[in-house]
């Protein structure tokens, strides 16, 4: 089973996770920029984070044979803090980089005017930089938030196939399917989807434009949920090709629209990565 996790926050994960992911078949991933649990208080904090997603985290992933890409954005939660929103002026400098395959996560958290503004401006940036967009849908008032998300996307002039609307569930999938956007599902313990419900949605809606991610981050989450969903699909009678469509071909097709996917991991520098299971610091 080859796996492309289209949404996972590796910055918060350990080398044990990288090792287990590689063993489970994960060969590529996209790490979208989001909040870190602890709120940021200034633009510099974002800049260091973006550098980390383009530098250190990519380097770390390469040691485990995993191709690391990222999506960059000001996330909706922090769009509400005026000390942070100026990062939108720095963002264009980063959207031209190799390894940046989308603008994201953008979207709504509490549906404030500040979030409206940041969302619209970043959709415009995506258009200008010819990048697809990863949209987060809110935890609270999800249906209304998803509906409003689709309205904003429609007004932006972005084609629906350039947009992935994420964290969907039984109550929000249909409107996104009808809008023609890609549909993302986070299989994440307790708060989002689980494997069984995911398989039921795949049975109902088919595999086209459907993406499954672990969204693993600093919360109680599981970076192997992609594989577990694949296994649940097989148990439910889906074929290997269906699993490959959902866990590999769909994310490759969606993020491939950036023209910047590099599915061979960037060489891990001057060091033979095969010999070490963790980052080299002289322990060999």
């Amino acid at each position: 089973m080859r796996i492309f996790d289209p949404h996972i926050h590796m910055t918060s994960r350990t080398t044990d996770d990288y090792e287990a992911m590689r063993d489970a078949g994960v060969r590529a991933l996209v790490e979208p920029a989001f909040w870190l649990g602890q709120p940021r208080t200034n633009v510099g904090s974002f800049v260091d984070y973006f550098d980390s997603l383009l530098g250190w985290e990519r380097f770390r992933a390469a040691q485990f044979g995993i191709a690391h890409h990222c999506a960059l954005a000001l996330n909706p939660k922090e769009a509400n803090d005026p000390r942070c929103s100026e990062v939108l002026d720095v963002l264009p400098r980063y959207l031209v980089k190799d390894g940046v395959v989308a603008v994201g996560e953008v979207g709504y958290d509490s549906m404030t005017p500040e979030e409206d503004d940041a969302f619209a401006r970043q959709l415009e940036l995506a258009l200008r930089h010819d990048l697809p967009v990863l949209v987060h849908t809110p935890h609270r008032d999800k249906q209304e938030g998803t509906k409003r998300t689709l309205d904003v996307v429609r007004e932006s002039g972005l084609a629906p196939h350039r947009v992935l609307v994420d964290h969907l569930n039984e109550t929000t999938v249909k409107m996104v399917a009808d809008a023609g956007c890609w549909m993302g599902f986070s299989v994440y313990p307790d708060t989002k989807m689980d494997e069984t419900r995911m398989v039921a949605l795949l049975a109902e809606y088919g595999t086209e434009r459907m993406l499954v991610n672990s969204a693993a981050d600093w919360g109680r989450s599981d970076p192997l949920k992609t594989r577990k969903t694949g296994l649940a699909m097989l148990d439910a009678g889906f074929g290997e090709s269906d699993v490959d469509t959902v866990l590999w071909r769909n994310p490759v097709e969606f993020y491939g629209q950036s023209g910047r996917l590099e599915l061979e991991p960037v060489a891990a520098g001057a060091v033979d990565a095969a010999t070490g299971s963790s980052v080299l610091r002289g322990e060999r």
Partner: protein
Amino acid sequence: MTFHLGYGTNGFANHRLDDALAVIADLGYTAVALTLDHHHLDPFADDVGKQTEQVATRLQELGLRVVVETGARYLLDPRRKHHPTLVSEDQEVRVDFLVRAKQIAADLGADCVSFWSGVGSPDAWDHLKSGVAAVLETGPSVPLGLEPEPGMVVERLDQALRLRTELGNPDLLRITLDVGHCVAVEPQDAAACIRQAGELLVNVQLDDMLPGVHEHLEFGEGQLDLPATLAALTGIGYTGVAAVELPRHSHAAPDVAARALRALRAAQWLADAERAVRADPAAIDTLFPAAGRAVGAGQDAARVRLLTAFADVADDPADGLTRLYRYGTSAERRGVLCGLAEVGDRAPAAGVALVEDALRSNETDLVAAALGPFATRHLGRHAWRHGVLKCLFMGIPLTAVDGLDRHSDAELLRMVAAFADERRAAGRPVPADALALLGKAS
């Protein structure tokens, strides 16, 4: 309008002509250099007129512009390669062939017929001139491109130009230039040859070569400066065909042709990017990041060239270098560090700050790139020694360190010896590079 990138069918000798044209067009070339040969539009075939018509249709369907080449090896004589030539006694055989080629070129709507002089004595100069004159006078009005060919009577551009002058500068006698030949035998580089040929240039062959060796190589295997060569073609306003000339690579033609086009596109991107940066140094902000996907494997070298162009025109190179590094990805930072060897002397304080930053990082690529010639020249001895030791810690081969042998000193050796002792005490292997360094000193 710019020139048309093409591929020579003599590099597809194991393909049917129709197939070769399709493969070349499918790869993305927009032109072809068609070498007339016994199996590729034989000018001596009874139905050559009909065949020419079919090829013309095919070229049109595929959208390929065409030049006619006449360098087939055994078309006129099955035993002697390239024989007879314009410097042979039986020159009329070659003249007849070239006139047939002109007719085919006219029927195909080709830009020109390209030809060379032949191997022989310099005494054959006048004989050659009369042969060229005969070809010019006979048949349809088609431009001829005289190609200087290493080892032949006309092997350099100045000789081709002299022959033209002596013939009274006929309008239809122009120049074909093989840029690889320029590397092999010309006293100046290919870009300078292109500028010298100027308006007389009617056909260009593209390949790499080493000085003094007439062997057609794939791009990157010789010493041709491809971006500068393409920039020179743009510079003189050349709008004709520039076709890859790799006649000894037919066994792997489709792969070789695909690689060549990738190299040409990367070089073209770089040539355009250098020009853009020289016109407006601020352009480097978007071009420097894009170099990775535009150029691929050669991205470090490409970024060094962009930095060189930038440093030549920027008001404050130090500020620019610092900014590109500060907002750079790992690959961009590596590019800046590599570039310090070329441009760092113009901003030594800023350069040292960047090297120090890279040496604080834990990315092997950055640490390795930081210890280049710039660090040897400008970094403090203490920091440099710690950089070398860090390489040993991180498993970076010491070949990454510029000037290690010259700059090793007693203090460095003491540090490395202590490091080796510590490794042994922990029961861990001592890196071979550390032992080698200590061994050389003892």
